[in-house]
């Protein structure tokens, strides 16, 4: 057994090139798997731990204004464990050297104390002291974006009143893990901030003395949110309640969930594809590797080693490679996961991260990759063992060949080397097929990991060039008369303005519901279009409502059905509105109708919720300053800022992830192609040496080998494109959320990239093999019977 162990070690050394390629594929498969699951599980664990420790509320309610005495009645609702009232106010923030408008939200905390729910985590400084009304806490994301520190002053406009406040601390809240301005799709930390003030201070600033306009509560065990929400809504209706909602509809939580779900899709899908492809390749490669050992296996058997010992010997050989690959893979995966989790922390503002690498995750990855490798090995070893030793030791008889199908179809002009290539491929169609499939999978993986960039660009293009053409969106604090539009039109730089009406509403069909808004537009809108499935603008009909196709799917509703609408403001009418058509939207979901019809259904006069503006960019800064001074404005969204924030976020998150994957896919592509070439070289060494002896140059013999490689690659490209398209479609489908749907758009660049990566891998392999070819020992290759 000792000699056999030595042989094992020497074989490992001899096979170091191919072994390294196999170990690389294992390492990548395992690393992707470990990285995805570990980073996702870490985020999930962090979410859970933060929610638990910081006592994230279960139900949220907003109203116009209610006296504090109402709080006791709310606490009496069965199922309420803890209820806390507070004041919340929209604010503008002014930063020196920052010309663009900054909006935000001010929330009250009990004077000098932590709130009971949604407790704050202080990253730096301390809570505002009781009785010190000028002290303020700033959210970490905003503080980071403007490099604010405790002790700095911050200029805040509350209710039209300018105040210079003192930052006492930097805080994080479970309520704002995903800190995003309502109505936007990506966070913009520099232009949207959260601040916390003592209750007394905010009451005074927002004219809320002895009153509250927001309540949060936690549920007693065994109670569900539904009953409590119904009771809350009933009690708060006279006080201008806008409808209580559970965590599921809380902005940060919902976005966090959506993002995590999307990550889950990616985290499940990509590594499964990776490890699946790795497993397939390993199986094929291990089997071929063993086939080159056929004679040695026969010799060992001739010496009297049992089949079991021989099989174990080769399994051990492969196991050693698996082990090396797995160790590297787990370490790499854990390292990448911690990097990724830290990266996501810029985005998901968790006070702390619970990083956990579960042994089960690592083990599963190793078992999948290692198992497939061993299976391929065992299969090949057993086949070699079945031969009588004498037969296995003899050189393989000349392989049987026939004229290829292509030749029989009558292409007689092929040169002999071309015939060699074709016949080699046709004689072993399975082997050629597996090679093609392997390379095709590599192509598909590159496509899968890179198509999102093009798709997202397309998505944004459709959204902001075809659908929403306004430069600025102005949202009012509450609906106002339509004549206010004239004030906006008169502002500097505004070249065109049109109004919209948006009413928060619960949309229901059957037992499904969606909390969103009913939006009314002018039918001849120039800045806002709804698009059909061919992306052509559709006119907004006078009656009925148009739904985003994704929303219609979520509700299970179609054109012609009656949508039940519970308006959540004003008189809160319950409406039945026929769905008259579906519109295509990649970003967000909506229910759109004629503005006049909407205001009629709302039972109001001619009101608007805000306006879309087209702006001369030269006047943008001046306009920003003027908009800040208009008191009824709750928020201003600038298209360019939104795009910038979106692109930045995409770059930081999804695209970093896909870049990781792209590098991995490239490495796999190389490993596949290189192994193919390496094995083809080993199998052909004798034939190639014969040709060299006959007077063929290195280049000419190289062509036979590399021509085969190139042909396989060329055949694999279209197959890979098809496979890739399918995988991309699957991923796009899996990543649909109501925040956005990545359209399945595969740009020519994606195809070119995928083909390029694989062709470069082919070229690199060709260079390496070319070197071996130069070292080919003609004499030895001729002498050795095989």
């Amino acid at each position: 057994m000792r000699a056999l162990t030595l042989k094992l070690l020497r074989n490992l050394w001899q096979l170091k090139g191919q072994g390294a390629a196999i170990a690389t594929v294992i390492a990548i498969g395992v690393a992707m798997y470990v990285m995805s699951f570990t980073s996702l599980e870490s985020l999930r664990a962090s979410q859970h731990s933060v929610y638990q420790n910081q006592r994230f509320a279960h139900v949220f309610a907003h109203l116009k204004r209610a006296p504090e005495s109402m709080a006791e009645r709310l606490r009496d609702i069965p199922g309420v464990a803890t209820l806390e009232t507070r004041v919340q106010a929209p604010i503008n923030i002014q930063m020196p050297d920052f010309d663009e408008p900054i909006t935000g939200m001010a929330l009250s905390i009990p004077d000098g104390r932590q709130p009971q729910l949604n407790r704050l985590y202080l990253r730096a400084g301390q809570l505002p002291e009781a009785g010190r009304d000028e002290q303020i806490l700033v959210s970490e994301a905003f503080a980071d974006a403007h490099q604010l520190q405790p002790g700095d002053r911050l200029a805040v406009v509350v209710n039209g009143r300018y105040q210079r406040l003192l930052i006492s601390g930097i805080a994080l809240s479970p309520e704002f893990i995903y800190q995003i301005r309502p109505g936007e799709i990506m966070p913009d930390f520099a232009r949207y901030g959260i601040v916390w003030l003592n209750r007394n201070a905010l009451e005074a600033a927002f004219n809320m003395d002895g009153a509250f306009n927001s309540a949060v509560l936690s549920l007693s065990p065994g109670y569900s949110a539904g009953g409590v929400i119904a009771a809350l809504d009933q009690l708060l209706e006279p006080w201008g309640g806008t409808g209580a909602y559970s965590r599921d509809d809380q902005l940060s939580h919902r976005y966090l969930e959506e993002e995590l779900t999307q990550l889950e899709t990616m985290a499940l899908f990509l590594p499964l594809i990776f490890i699946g492809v790795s497993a397939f390749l390993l199986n094929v490669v291990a089997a071929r590797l063993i086939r080159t050992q056929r004679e040695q296996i026969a010799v060992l058997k001739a010496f009297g080693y049992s089949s079991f010992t021989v099989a174990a010997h080769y399994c051990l050989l492969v196991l050693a490679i698996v082990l090396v690959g797995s160790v590297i893979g787990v370490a790499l995966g854990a390292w990448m996961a911690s990097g990724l989790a830290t990266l996501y922390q810029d985005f998901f503002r968790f006070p702390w991260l619970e990083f956990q690498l579960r042994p089960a995750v690592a083990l599963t990855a190793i078992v999948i990759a290692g198992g497939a490798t061993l299976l391929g090995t065992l299969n090949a070893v057993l086949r070699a063992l079945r031969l009588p030793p004498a037969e296995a030791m003899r050189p393989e008889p000349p392989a049987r060949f026939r004229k290829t199908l292509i030749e029989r179809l009558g292409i007689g002009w092929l040169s002999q080397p071309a015939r060699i290539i074709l016949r080699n491929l046709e004689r072993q169609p399975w082997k050629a097929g597996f090679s093609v499939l392997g390379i095709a999978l590599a192509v598909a993986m590159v496509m899968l990991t890179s198509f999102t960039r093009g798709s997202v660009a397309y998505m944004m293009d459709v959204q902001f060039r075809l659908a929403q053409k306004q430069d600025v969106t102005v949202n009012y604090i509450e609906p106002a008369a339509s004549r206010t539009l004239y004030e906006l039109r008169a502002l500097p730089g505004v070249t065109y303005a049109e109004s919209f009406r948006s009413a928060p509403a619960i949309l229901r069909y059957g037992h499904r519901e969606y909390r969103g808004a009913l939006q009314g537009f002018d039918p001849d809108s120039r800045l806002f279009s709804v698009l059909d499935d061919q992306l052509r603008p559709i006119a907004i009909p006078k009656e009925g409502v148009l739904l985003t196709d994704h929303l219609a799917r979520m509700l299970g509703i179609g054109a012609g059905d009656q949508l039940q609408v519970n308006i959540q403001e004003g008189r809160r009418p319950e409406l039945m509105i026929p769905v008259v058509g579906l519109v295509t939207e990649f970003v967000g979901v909506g229910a759109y109708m004629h503005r006049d019809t909407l205001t009629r259904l709302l039972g109001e006069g001619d009101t608007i919720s805000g306006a879309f503006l087209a702006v001369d960019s030269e006047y943008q800064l001046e306009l920003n300053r003027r908009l800040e001074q208009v008191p009824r404005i709750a928020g201003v969204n600038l298209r360019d800022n939104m795009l910038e924030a979106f692109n930045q976020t995409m770059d930081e998150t999804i695209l970093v992830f896909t870049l990781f994957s792209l590098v991995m896919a490239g490495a796999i592509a190389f490993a596949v192609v290189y192994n193919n070439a390496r094995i083809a070289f080993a199998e052909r060494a004798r034939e190639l040496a014969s040709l060299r002896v006959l007077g063929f140059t290195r280049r000419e013999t190289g062509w036979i080998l590399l021509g085969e490689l190139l042909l396989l690659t060329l055949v694999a490209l279209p197959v890979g494109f098809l496979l890739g398209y399918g995988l991309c479609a699957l991923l796009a489908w899996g990543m649909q959320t109501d925040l956005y749907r990545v359209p399945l758009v595969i740009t020519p660049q994606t195809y070119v990239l995928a083909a390029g990566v694989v062709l470069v891998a082919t070229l690199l392999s060709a260079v390496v093999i070319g070197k071996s070819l130069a070292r080919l020992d003609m004499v030895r290759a001729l002498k050795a019977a095989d």
Partner: protein
Amino acid sequence: MTKETVFSTRNLTRVFRMGEVEIHALRGVDMDLYAGEFVVLLGASGSGKSTLLNILGGLDAGTSGEVRYRDLDLSRANERRLTEFRRHHVGFVFQFYNLIPSLTARENVAIVTEIARDPMTPEEALALVGLEQRLDHFPAQLSGGEQQRVAIARAIAKRPDVLLCDEPTGALDSKTGIKVLQVLQDINRRLGTTTAVITHNAVIAEMADRTLRLSDGRVSEVIDNPNPVAPDRLHW
């Protein structure tokens, strides 16, 4: 009559380094091969005969000494010249045929004629070895003797100056072997191709014009044979 020298070696040595051991395969070989003759290089296993043939054929280079093919100094030729030399001047026949299994008999010959300067057609070459009926058979469909004859056809199709044969009958039974030798002699006589056959089978020497006996890396004996025997009268 002065004989035209095709190959000549002077003090040719070849040392193989196998790890820390040096094996002296050739220890100073002086020999000449003349145009048109049929020479047998006779020697036991390890006598250096294959090494000598490989160096003459441009597959290997000596460690020291001189090897000339007509005006070409093989001992100083680079890789490109050697490839060209093999391509245009030398025909090889090996013990294990070394046919390309994926090509038919005709195509195995064509692979050489396609890169040669003034070749015969594959059909002509195969007719010369008596295989005009087996043109489209793949190696796996041919007997050992037939495969070796394809190899000979492949070697002669380019009309080489020299035909170098390394144990051409080594893998064949005697009856088939004799058929192969007849083909070789026939080619030598008809085309005047200088032919060198290496073998450990002393019987074959009887059909040669000249026999060089190799032992321990040197030419130990040169035997002229004014009356070569026809191959069909050989027995072993």
